[in-house]
C-alpha cells in the first residue's frame, strides 16, 4: 500500500493566478499520476509523471497550463496556471502498486 499526502487540501484562488499542488508519497514509486475531478464528474487523467523525465500529458492537457515537476521518487507537484473558473475542480495525485491505484485526499480548488 501507499500513503499519499496532498497540500493544500483546498484553496480559493483569483482568476489569472497560478497554484502549485504538492504530492508526497511514503514510499518510492516510479510513476505518479495526476487526475482532475470536476464537480459531479468522474476522474480524468491529466498526466503521468516519471522521475527524471518530462511528464506525459493526456489529450486536452498541455504542459503550459499544467506544468509538473518530479524531482525524486517520492514527490511531485502540479501547477494550475493562469486559472479561470473552469479550473475549479478537485485535483488528485495517485500512485500504482500491484495493479491498484492509491489516491491522495485531493486538493479542492475554487477559482473566482
Amino acid at each position, binding site marked *: 500500500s501507499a500513503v499519499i499526502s496532498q497540500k493544500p487540501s483546498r484553496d480559493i484562488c483569483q482568476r489569472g493566478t497560478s497554484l502549485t499542488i504538492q504530492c508526497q508519497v511514503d514510499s518510492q514509486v516510479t*510513476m505518479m499520476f495526476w487526475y482532475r475531478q470536476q464537480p459531479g464528474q*468522474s*476522474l480524468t487523467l491529466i498526466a503521468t509523471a516519471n522521475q527524471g523525465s518530462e511528464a506525459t500529458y493526456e489529450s486536452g492537457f498541455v504542459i503550459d497550463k499544467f506544468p509538473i515537476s518530479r524531482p525524486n521518487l517520492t514527490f511531485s507537484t502540479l501547477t494550475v496556471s493562469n486559472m479561470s473558473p473552469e479550473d475549479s475542480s478537485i485535483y488528485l495525485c495517485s500512485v500504482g502498486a500491484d495493479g*491498484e*491505484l492509491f489516491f*491522495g485526499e485531493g486538493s479542492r480548488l475554487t477559482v473566482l
Partner: protein
Amino acid sequence: SQKIEQNSEALNIQEGKTATLTCNYTNYSPAYLQWYRQDPGRGPVFLLLIRENEKEKRKERLKVTFDTTLKQSLFHITASQPADSATYLCALGSGATNKLIFGTGTLLAVQP
C-alpha cells in the same frame, strides 16, 4: 472513442438487500477492471480488481463479474448497510502502467 457508462441515476435500496451496480464500456479491450469507492470530499479507495480472464471475483460482501463479450461488469454488495452509501467508480486498465480510465460513478444510498 473509449466510453465507460455506469448507472446514471442514483441507486436507492433498503438495508439488507443486495445492491447491483453496472459498468458498460465500448471501444476498449481492457486487460483488467477495477472498482473504487469514493466518499464525499475524499479520494477514491480501491475495492476489487478483476482480470479479463476471470469471470467473477469475491471479497467479503462484494462480488464482481466481468463479461468481456458483453463488455460489462456487475458489482454486487450483499446484505447492504447504510455505511455502504457512497459513489462507486469502475475503472478500466490495460498493460502494466496503472493508467486507468474511470467511469462516471454511481451514487448508492442504503436506507436503514
